[in-house]
């Protein structure tokens, strides 16, 4: 309100009493102070946001970087032909079903010098991952000529060993509060000293599917599931959204019906995502009978969710194309269709793509609509097509966050980092597209 009292701005009001043209110093000072305060509020708001962002990143990275490495054990396994391929049969089935666990356990016993005491053996076997046999099996399947030889293999150690080596469980605790007893810790130390136990890059984290054993669990299925879903979203939401927006913007008459449609599209953009999950369950699963847990259904549900965003973004960028372009094209004899396909849509494309990518980035982080269509699930096998069961990145984070094993804590953070990398890549793509293709008039 102080603004209106300023001598310079009231110069036009002839009726008011004449005022001093000399500036009131006190007043000027208070106005500058007010402006400085106003700026400080803005800086404080940004600092507040940045502080929490930095906090998030620092804690995630500190907690999650450990998951990039996994403790592996080097064992000299004798691939005894009688166990791996009984009767000299080297067919796929025999190689698949052979008892690799027994071979690994024998190798471990020899390395540690474990006797025949059952308790001692059980303790020793607990150092080895439950999935180590699969790792050895894959090695043999890839190269059957190894049979009969003694090979040195790196296999995963159990998650308890891993957390001990990473220092996530203190060794100073009383024995009954630890997952590993004194004997097991002594063995672990011996293996480390012999160079048989070390941290190596955790490929499983990026390749494997779900597993009950943290050391074998990975984001592979979730990454592929999310990629399939994004593909489906792109292939459905973009063309449908663009078609709807072009019609509404270029052809539709302005009347009560189109107003109603417009209001509804804007409302749909704000509908909670779980509602789209219910819709997906009713339409895609119950009515069309599509498979449960399939990324194609998840993608369609997310496409429905993204559609209003695409329509709104497309309409805005079509509106931003200057009328002179349309008129010039019509003036040289182009048809309405040519005006749209040759001029309006190509010029609006950067805006359309930016809107779509941002909508997809939001869809990538959704779990609620996926719950009802069965994608919040434990899926081991990598999906070959979008019709095979899969999970999604945020779902995997949610499931790991609830797991009881300590080793899942760092994996949860690592999974969040992977999701963030995806989001950053998508948003960066949106920025690049805009920078590169945007035209200003």
């Amino acid at each position, binding site marked *: 309100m102080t603004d209106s009292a300023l001598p310079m701005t009231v110069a036009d009001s002839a009726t008011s009493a004449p005022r001093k043209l000399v500036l009131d110093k006190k007043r000027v000072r208070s106005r500058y102070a007010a402006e400085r305060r106003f700026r400080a509020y803005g800086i404080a708001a940004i600092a507040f946001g940045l502080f929490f962002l930095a906090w998030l990143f620092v804690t995630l990275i500190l907690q999650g970087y450990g998951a990039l490495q996994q403790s592996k054990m080097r064992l000299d396994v004798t691939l005894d032909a009688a166990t791996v391929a009984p009767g000299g049969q080297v067919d796929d089935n025999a190689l698949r079903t052979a008892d690799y666990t027994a071979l690994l356990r024998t190798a471990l016993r020899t390395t540690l010098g474990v006797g025949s005491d059952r308790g001692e053996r059980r303790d020793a076997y607990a150092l080895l991952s439950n999935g180590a046999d699969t790792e050895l099996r894959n090695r043999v399947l890839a190269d059957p000529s190894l049979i009969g030889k003694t090979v040195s293999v790196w296999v995963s150690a159990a998650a308890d060993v891993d957390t001990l080596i990473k220092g996530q469980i203190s060794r100073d605790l009383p024995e009954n509060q630890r997952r590993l007893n004194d004997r097991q810790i002594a063995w672990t130390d011996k293996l480390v000293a012999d160079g048989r136990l070390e941290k190596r890059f955790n490929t499983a984290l990026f390749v494997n599917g779900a597993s009950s054993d943290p050391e074998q669990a990975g984001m592979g299925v979730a990454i592929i599931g999310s990629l399939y879903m994004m593909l489906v979203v792109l292939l459905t939401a973009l063309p449908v959204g663009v078609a709807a927006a072009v019609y509404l913007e270029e052809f539709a008459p302005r009347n009560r019906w189109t107003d109603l449609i417009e209001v509804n599209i804007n409302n749909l953009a704000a509908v909670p995502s779980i509602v789209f999950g219910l819709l997906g369950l009713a339409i895609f699963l119950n009515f069309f009978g*599509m498979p449960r847990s399939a990324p194609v259904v998840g993608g369609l549900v997310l496409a429905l969710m993204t559609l209003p965003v695409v329509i709104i973004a497309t309409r805005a960028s079509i509106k931003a194309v200057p009328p002179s372009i349309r008129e010039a094209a019509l003036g040289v004899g182009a048809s309405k269709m040519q005006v749209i*396909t040759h001029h309006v849509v190509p010029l609006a494309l950067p805006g359309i793509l930016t809107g779509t990518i941002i909508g997809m980035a939001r869809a990538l982080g959704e779990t609620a609509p996926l719950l009802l269509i069965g994608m919040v699930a434990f899926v081991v096998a990598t999906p070959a097509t979008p*019709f095979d069961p899969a999970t999604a990145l945020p779902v995997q984070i949610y499931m790991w966050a609830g797991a009881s094993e300590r080793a899942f804590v760092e994996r949860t953070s690592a999974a969040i980092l992977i999701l963030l990398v995806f989001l950053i890549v998508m948003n960066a793509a949106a920025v690049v597209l805009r920078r590169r293709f945007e035209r200003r008039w």
Partner: protein
Amino acid sequence: MLVRTLTAGTFTALVAVMAAGVAQARDQIQIAGSSTVLPFANIAAEQFGKTFSGKFKTPIVESGGSSAGLKNFCGGIGEKTIDIANSSRKIRPNEIEECKKNGVAEIQEIRIGYDGIVFASSTKGGTFVLEPKHVYLAVAAQVPVKGALAPNPYTNWKQIDAKLPDQPIQLFIPGEKHGTREVFEEKVLEAGCHDFPEIKALTDAKAKANACKAVRKDGLSVDIDGDYTETLARIQRTPTAIGVFGLSFYEQNKDKIKVATVSGIEPTIDTIASGKYPVSRPLYFYVKKAHLSVIPGLKEYVEFFLSDKIVGDEGMATDKGLIPMPTPERTKMRADFGKGALVN
């Protein structure tokens, strides 16, 4: 041109998607339900996939809760519906009705073992030697005071029993939507309240149940609707608090929490399996009999789950914290499944 190609492309894609969805036959077992059973179902599914590698696909196990799983299960039969519902409680009569109405007439019930429910507190706090009545007196909204029910006056464990540590009362109990809450009410609160003469004096069964189960709302007992991870985080923030956990969760986090004895018994796999430790419940899954002959591997999966490799005394689910059934019970369960015994 762009618009035309894109639209045409979309329609073709959509039609293809619908057609494929309808035409595809399912060769993979689908399971949904309880999050308590989930870790055990996960390990069974994973090992099943490994053992029958190349023959059957690894089953898909969805999480979401017992009630949601059973609702889904009772939605009908056929490829589009799930084959198995995991449940941390017995199927209710109204759910069986619902199932029958939708054509799921034949349901087989499989008990896989037991789940122990433990009270645990931070390793930094005092040690608790609990009786059900202590928990009742600490948690209930109204407790017997001098011959009548009065709003809960207790704020310190010491006031309840001199043997308990001198610590303010703070409990984190499972929220209403959890199956664990039911067991907590039945095996702890009800067991704890029945001996008081003031409760015995109540003739109306409903009033009696209410007096036992109604929980105080003054903040000393907090309902946790999330999972055990949340309870653990709360306990680390408040080292004087007690939380309710599953035995397996406690065993994985022994360095942070210690367990309280109930009626003098420490919860271990042995004391729970023998029934000495009072707070436990059976875990189930339900199978559609009609699916057994249709979905490849379903019968083998159930048999595999009931094998000693998974639910035996040294089975893999037992390693993850499932309390195994005694051998005769296990043998009977397998026989019942073989005979095709139904829930009625």
